[in-house]
């Protein structure tokens, strides 16, 4: 099979690689010369993701097929490249190499057939056509290679079964013992490989370059962090694709539309028009339009508006649950693009959905989502001897262990006020020196930020940061995962780093250290609903579960979708304040799923989830409605 290369062949190879390079350079220009994103490469993550397919293998079947195709292409490529140097290899390793080569080919065959069948059965109209050309090319490469090998074996007519090439032997049964046929097959094989290489930038195979690049430049630091536009210099979100950073464009370039985002998106599942995959595809289409239209743009043509491709219903349907980000095998984030689009709609065009305007206005004037005003922020703690920071202003350094960040829900929503009081009870029982900000606390700004009003978010955040600095706050415990994520990750973008943990993390430690005793059972069977901002965003999966396992006489069950795959309650991303007119209600979908687990108590650690799920289970009108409670409430109840 070893064919020494002629000059003509070298020319062809050079041509193929030149075509690939030029094609890639053209695609490159779609995204490379754009707004900076300020990120650096992550080589370790790249190795794990590309060589071991760590994230692709989260779907074992299709991921395995992809792994087989990947190595089935890479191994023979390396072997053939090495063969061109004509090393003198002893017989045994050469045979082994040949066997590996054959096995790789077999893996490629199986993988490609699996993927092909899956593609052809796919219901998406353009699904099969997009990937058919590269797949057929690979099949041509495969069969021509094996037929050449088969022909070689039939020419040699070796005795017995040729162990180094079992599949070649099989093909030798059907291929003629003709050197001409063998040469033809080798040429076909060679041309098909070159064609595939040259076709990389122009077909679906582009992902072989773009996706590893995207993995290399994956977002570091806080998970699914939003972009941090410089409002002062007029960056107010994404009006056109030109307002996206190069990383966001590389995201679009790296997408192969595998659809794992859609499979996990609560908006898609509940029948909303939003599809994270379509958002990414829309962005790439517009990138291509802008790139093809460069001369027109120079003559004063405006680039197409993103809102022409992505409707308002789509961008406002996102609950910012991060499921799409979590499940993307190559770390594409539709989420930050959706929020960027919202930002432009809200700040640039003042098109905030009408039902959310009152909340945003209240946030602006009164500093909380309910519009009750800061004067009422400590009402839940009245006459309950909850220390407020301004009262303990003269404290010494070690007086205060933690600042309890109550949040708008905990301070104003009657249901969540119970949770705040329960937390106070726990902290007092454990003897922790804590304080609340009381009337000096403002909303953390999460609803404003996720709804796209970045200006308002900054205003609230700066006011809060001033308080933290004034009292030299060291450690914050939040009751709400949204506050947790905002104080921990979003405030870091504003240059303020704090040690922030969620209440369940603290309580887990207290239970572990036996500083509080869980004495009384609260339910027979219970399940935990993972809050998106606690689980996926901040990787706190274990504490709520461990706490609930510590409650005597309570069996902890898991729901169908949990942890990384946990299903959103429908309240995040500002959806709490928006109407849900299209499709099913997300909270009802989740509630149906939760009651199937046959539990009588649903525990969650998020005030939004609590309200949404409680509404959900009640609207199911079951004979026996499971109770929904915050994990903190459960702990307080179990303490007696």
């Amino acid at each position, binding site marked *: 099979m070893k064919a020494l290369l002629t000059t003509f062949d070298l020319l062809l190879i050079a041509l193929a690689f030149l075509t690939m390079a030029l094609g890639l350079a053209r695609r490159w220009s779609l995204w490379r010369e754009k707004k900076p994103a300020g990120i650096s490469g992550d080589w370790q993550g790249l190795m794990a993701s590309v060589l071991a397919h760590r994230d692709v293998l989260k779907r074992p079947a299709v991921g395995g097929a992809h792994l087989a195709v990947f190595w089935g292409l890479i191994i023979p490529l390396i072997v053939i490249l090495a063969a061109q140097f004509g090393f003198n290899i002893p017989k045994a390793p050469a045979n082994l190499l040949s066997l590996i080569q054959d096995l790789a080919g077999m893996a490629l065959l199986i993988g490609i057939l699996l993927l092909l069948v899956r593609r052809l059965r796919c219901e998406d109209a353009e699904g099969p056509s997009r990937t058919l050309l590269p797949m057929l090319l690979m099949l041509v490469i495969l069969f021509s290679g094996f037929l050449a090998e088969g022909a070689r074996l039939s020419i040699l007519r070796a005795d017995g079964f040729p162990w180094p090439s079992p599949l070649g032997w099989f093909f030798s049964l059907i291929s003629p013992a003709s050197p001409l046929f063998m040469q033809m097959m080798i040429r076909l094989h060679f041309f098909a490989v070159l064609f595939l290489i040259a076709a990389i930038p122009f077909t679906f195979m582009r992902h072989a370059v773009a996706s590893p690049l995207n993995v290399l430049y994956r977002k570091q630091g806080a998970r699914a962090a939003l972009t941090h536009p410089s409002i002062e210099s*007029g960056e*107010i979100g994404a009006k056109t694709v030109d307002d996206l950073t190069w990383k966001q464009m590389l995201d679009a370039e790296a997408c192969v539309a595998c659809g794992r985002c859609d499979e996990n998106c609560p908006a898609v599942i509940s029948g909303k028009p939003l599809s994270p995959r379509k958002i990414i595809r829309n962005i790439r289409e517009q990138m291509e339009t802008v790139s093809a239209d460069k001369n027109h743009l120079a003559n004063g043509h405006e680039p197409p508006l993103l809102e022409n491709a992505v409707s308002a219903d789509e961008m406002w349907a996102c609950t910012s649950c991060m499921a799409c980000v979590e499940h993307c095998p190559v770390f594409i984030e539709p989420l930050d693009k959706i929020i960027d689009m919202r930002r432009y709609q*809200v*700040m*640039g*065009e*003042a098109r*905030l959905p009408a039902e959310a*305007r*009152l909340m*945003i*206005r209240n946030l602006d*004037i*009164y500093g909380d989502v309910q519009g009750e*005003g*800061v*004067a*009422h922020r400590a*009402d839940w703690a*009245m*006459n309950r001897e909850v220390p407020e920071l301004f009262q303990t202003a003269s404290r010494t350094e070690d007086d205060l262990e933690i600042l309890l960040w109550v949040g708008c829900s905990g301070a104003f929503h*009657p249901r969540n006020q119970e949770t705040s009081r329960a937390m106070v009870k726990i902290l007092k029982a454990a003897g922790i020196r804590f304080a609340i900000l009381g*009337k000096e606390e403002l909303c953390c700004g999460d609803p404003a930020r996720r709804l796209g009003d970045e*200006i308002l978010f900054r205003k609230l955040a700066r006011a809060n940061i001033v308080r933290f600095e004034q009292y030299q706050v060291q450690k914050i415990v939040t009751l709400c995962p949204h506050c947790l994520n905002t104080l921990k990750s979003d405030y870091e973008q504003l240059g303020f780093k704090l040690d922030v943990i969620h209440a369940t993390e603290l309580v887990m430690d207290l239970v572990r250290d036996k500083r509080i005793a869980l004495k009384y059972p609260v339910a027979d069977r219970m399940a935990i609903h993972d809050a998106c901002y606690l689980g996926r965003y901040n990787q706190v999966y274990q504490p709520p579960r461990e706490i609930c396992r510590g409650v005597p006489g309570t069996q902890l069950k898991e729901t169908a979708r949990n942890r990384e795959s946990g299903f959103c309650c429908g309240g995040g991303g500002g959806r709490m304040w928006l109407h849900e007119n299209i499709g099913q209600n997300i909270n009802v979908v989740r509630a149906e799923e939760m009651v199937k687990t046959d539990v009588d108590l649903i525990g969650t650690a998020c005030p939004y989830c609590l309200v949404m799920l409680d509404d959900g289970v009640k609207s199911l009108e079951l004979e026996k409605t499971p109770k929904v409670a915050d994990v903190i409430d459960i702990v307080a109840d179990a303490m007696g």
Partner: protein
Amino acid sequence: MKIIVCAKQIRHTYTRTGSSPQSHYISPEDNVYRVNPHDEAALELALRLKDEHEDIAVVLLTLGPMIAEEEIRRCLAAGADDLYQIDVNGQPPSQSDAISSDPLDQADPLNQADPSVKSDLMAQAVKELKGDLVLCGKASVDKGSGQVGALLAHRLDLPFVSAITELTITDPSTGSTGGTLKVQRSAGRGVREIIECKLPAVFSVDLGPDLRMPKFSQRQWAEGYVPRQLDYGADVEAPKIVCTHRFQPRPRPKLVTAPDSRLNAYERIMQLLTGSKVEKTGEVLTGSPESQVEGIIAFLQANGFLESHSADQ
């Protein structure tokens, strides 16, 4: 056509959570500084006219110090073209003592100029700015007299319609003949009136449309905008009425016909018992009966319920 929208910057006391009787139980955080919501509704009506017709200029007119500057700039950013501020410093105050130079004191409804003085200043401004239509809020939520619009119309000798909720131009011609407007007025209890009126005119606006959100470009423009000053110096009438005292409502138990059934038993009972949303903390006196009596008398004296000599006897 020029529409003048009168916008009042107010200190809105939304609750009383303080503990000191001298301050009427109002603590600083019980206040928010904002533009009177009725005036915001008036601005929105004006902006809707501006959306539909060309050649309409919307001018904001505000009286007194900029106590809610951020909010008035937000109004400007929502789509107004200009902002004029009338200086009231040096005006005879409604109270005997002079107006404090502290703008926060001037925000106190008790220290505000009387409606006739306000309307005089505003009438001069409207004449100077040559407004064709003047819109103002039905009443302000801090003072609530509801007189200024009517007095302004009287001083300008213009037709006046109160509490309008909709405003359309039926004949957009301007000039000496004047255009015609059709307004919808809320006559209370859900009764509506449709009224036709010739320009120029003065309308006061009831709550209804919410003021639109400002766009970023306008917001930036409004941030750098320098309000134009109008000063009428001593050229103003003396106040006709003087407000001497202003009492805050005493907390009374709210009448609850049926407790909210969604609440739990504890909260239902609390709702029946207290009625009021905010729990007040009193001071518990301890010690001998004599010292407790002394404590009560001291409290009553300190808060002006008792003249000190009567306690001595």
